């Protein structure tokens, strides 16, 4: 399946939508720091994998998809919800990458340069996510082809 880059999407997002995500992200980062300072880094660390901007992002996707359908004179409620559901499924795959990020950072941080470790962990996150996403899509396509053949026969 092809991955497209849609630069115009940046223009479709309004400034207040950027601001909402900034506030969500900043608040969770500040909260992680406050909890770590008060209850220790072990508890504060949980918030490093908090679904910080997910509710805001999913809501924006739902809104944008609905508006696209409504411009065509259609009711986009279901389409918006389906797009948000697909986004959540993608985030579930992304969380496996997040798990790998945490694992690599935890294992390498005590012995290696900090910036090298963070760069490597981010690369591992990206590679894990992209590979899992690709495998899932390929699996779906194979299933679809199989059912097409069965129906044809």
């Amino acid at each position, binding site marked *: 399946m092809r*991955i*497209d*880059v849609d630069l115009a*999407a*940046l223009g479709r*997002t309004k400034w207040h939508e*950027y601001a909402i*995500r900034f506030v969500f*992200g*900043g*608040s*969770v*980062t*500040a909260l*992680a720091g*406050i909890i770590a300072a008060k209850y*220790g*880094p*072990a508890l504060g*660390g*949980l*918030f*490093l*994998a*908090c*679904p*910080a*901007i*997910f*509710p805001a992002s*999913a*809501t924006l*996707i739902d809104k944008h998809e609905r508006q696209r359908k409504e411009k065509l004179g259609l009711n986009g409620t279901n389409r918006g*919800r*389906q*797009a948000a*559901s*697909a*986004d*959540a499924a*993608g*985030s*579930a*795959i*992304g*969380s*496996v990458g*997040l*798990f790998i*990020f*945490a694992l690599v950072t*935890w294992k390498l*941080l005590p012995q290696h340069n*900090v910036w090298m470790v*963070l760069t490597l*962990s981010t690369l591992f*996150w990206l590679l894990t*996510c*992209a590979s899992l*996403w690709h495998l899932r899509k390929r699996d779906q396509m194979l299933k679809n082809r199989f059912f097409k053949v069965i129906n044809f026969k």
Partner: protein
Amino acid sequence: MKEILIRFLVGGAVVSLFAALGDLFRPKSFAGLFGAAPAVALATLSLTIADKTTSYATTESHSMIAGALAFFIYASCVSWVLMHHKLNVFLAATAAVPVWFRVALGFWRIWLN
């Protein structure tokens, strides 16, 4: 107070950057990968290392493992609920955040603490 403000600004900037990256891609399932980007982790760990010891950041990243496992359950639940029920997206995604916290705390207590 100054430290919290710096965390807020750096965290907000990094999270916004990853969110904007997510906006660029289609299909939406691929863009969703950026919803679980290590944005908060990158901002927090960078600031922690600049301010505190490496062992402090190592402990944080150890706990993050439990948070990431809980995120997987959270995102899977939200995806399933939105696909099968006619719920408001913001409501479903926000109402499930306490589930993330409970699960993360459970994993942390059982395996990591």
